[in-house]
């Protein structure tokens, strides 16, 4: 039971946060949770061995689907979140049949190119999407109430954390870990490699679409440049790397750490605070390929072992 105490405390803390934190802090945490969910979704795909650069693309697709269905068809904003998720998921499903044949740099580059294609297409359909100037929603979700918005994002993020844990604890973990380690062994052990890749690709893309939808409903505004911004790719990657890839806890730790640092730096230097993310990515790849979560965990377990109260 001991290992559940910390997670439960953190969940309780996140639930009561609006009552103890001011608007500014709440806003920062809302935005950290957004990037946390993206970071986890990117990591879940990476666990299959596929490096996706399409995070911003599916985020943007979900954002647009959600915004347009509210503006054009008068959908309920909360329902539109689901629309965003489903739209990104469906697009990923069909694209998956083609792009999931690719590996390594070819998969990475194709997903990056797809992000650009999405944004070019949207920019060039002005009647539908508002073109390069974008579309403004008449009202933010919950009339812009920051507390309700925080809870909405919190629910989404907790759901994503839940999915990530399911991915870690069920046979899905065995399948995708095998695929990453050795595809030939995976196949000859009876794993339907393509089925699992497609499944993970669709789920993670749907998550990205959902988060994009929530984001756009929060800010009541979409435009190709800001909605498909590579920040929605870069920051999640940096967060996962710093915390530690192939885990749930890694991206969570990374998101809070980098989120808070970035917020501080944004106040200190208006231009170029993103340089920190670049430096962090380079530094982590070179010197701490495991991120900070695993080394910490191992030390803690190491201490526990010498104390004799943890049974391996």
């Amino acid at each position, binding site marked *: 039971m001991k290992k559940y105490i910390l997670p439960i405390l953190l969940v309780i803390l996140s639930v009561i946060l609006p009552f103890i934190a001011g608007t500014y802090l709440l806003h920062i945490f809302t935005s950290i949770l957004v990037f946390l969910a993206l970071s986890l979704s990117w990591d879940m795909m990476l666990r299959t061995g596929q490096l996706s650069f399409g995070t911003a693309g599916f985020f943007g697709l979900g954002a647009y689907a959600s915004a347009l269905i509210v503006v054009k068809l008068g959908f309920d904003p909360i329902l539109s979140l689901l629309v965003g998720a489903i739209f990104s998921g469906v697009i990923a499903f069909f694209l998956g049949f*083609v792009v999931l*044949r690719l590996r390594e740099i070819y998969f990475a580059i194709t997903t990056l190119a797809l992000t*650009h294609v999405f944004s070019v297409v949207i920019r060039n359909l002005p009647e539908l999407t508002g073109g390069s100037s974008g579309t403004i929603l008449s009202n933010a979700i919950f009339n812009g109430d920051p507390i309700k918005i925080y809870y909405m994002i919190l629910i989404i993020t907790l759901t994503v954390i839940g999915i990530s844990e399911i991915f870690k604890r069920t046979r899905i973990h065995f399948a995708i870990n095998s695929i990453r380690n050795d595809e030939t062994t995976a196949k000859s052990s009876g794993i339907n490699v393509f089925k699992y890749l497609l499944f993970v690709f669709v789920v993670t893309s749907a998550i990205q679409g959902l988060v994009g939808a929530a984001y756009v409903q929060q800010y009541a505004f979409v435009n190709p440049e800001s909605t498909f911004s590579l920040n929605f790719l870069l920051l999640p990657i940096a967060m996962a790397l710093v915390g530690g890839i192939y885990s749930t806890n890694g991206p969570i730790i990374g998101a809070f750490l980098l989120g808070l640092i970035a917020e501080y730096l944004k106040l200190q230097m208006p231009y170029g605070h*993103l340089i920190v993310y670049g430096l962090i990515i380079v530094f982590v790849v070179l010197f701490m390929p495991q991120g900070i979560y695993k080394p910490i965990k191992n030390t803690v377990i190491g201490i526990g072992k010498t104390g004799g109260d943890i049974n391996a």
Partner: protein
Amino acid sequence: MSFSLKKSYRLLLLLILFMVIIGIWRPNALLDGLQRGSLYAIIALPLALVLGILGVLNLAHGDFLTVGFYLIYMLYSRFNLDPLVSIVPAVLFLILLSGGIYLLTVKNVLKDGHLNQLLITFGISLVLIETINIIWTSRPRNVYTDYAYSAIEVGGFRFGTYELLYILIAVAVLVALQWFLKNTRLGQATFAVGQNPKGARIVGINVNFVYLFVFSVSIGILGIVAGFMLPRTAIFPGVGSPFSLKSFALAAMAGLGNLNGILIAGVTLGIGEAVINSIPNYGGWSDIVFFGVLIIVIISRSYRRAR
């Protein structure tokens, strides 16, 4: 990789046919496309070289071009140095900068998987862009020179002469590169490392030096491009980024190691972009040419390989 230095005659013929048709239909687009395409090709050549010999896709490639731009811009605004003169310091600076970055970072991930290689160049890209952002902010900058806007008129058809230079430079860089690979000791060593790094090491080639040399000189070439492009280009911190992906598109289209193919692919896509650009109301779709072609090429290659 294996360099195919043989001329790609069949492709070349197709390209010429394509150009004739475009030339009759939209002569302006042909000229525009030729210029763009040549630029794309010179920028893509060094990326293809690094990809072929080191096996690293450098996602910071285009951002090194940006660094070149800003350096030349600074020399212009501080010391009123002509951009074309600044090419010399720009090339030297880029060689030193990229050589240093290579030794500090890329060198250490050469043996790692593609994941670390992509991520590290991705990180470098970000650092370069943001450094420029910090020093010069995101405000667009320009350099004005008279000669960049000179034009001539032939039979009622007016066109700029300066951009024609791009085509000459592209051909010159390509020829020089091939001459180097064939006729110098270092070039042949490079060639050998590209073919078989282990074998090259056994016969006594200093593979590490070849890697360093290829990486830094490739980036150095971008200094030449930056000098010629700057008089006609408004620059901002992200100006070079799209070239990384576009260059990879050309390298993938030409096939690894096919240097001539890159010029052909560059000109083809350049003209394609220019044609779409020249269609009223649909100009915005031209951005899709490269990404669309990139995706189609990669995927069709993967199908062919599977068979």
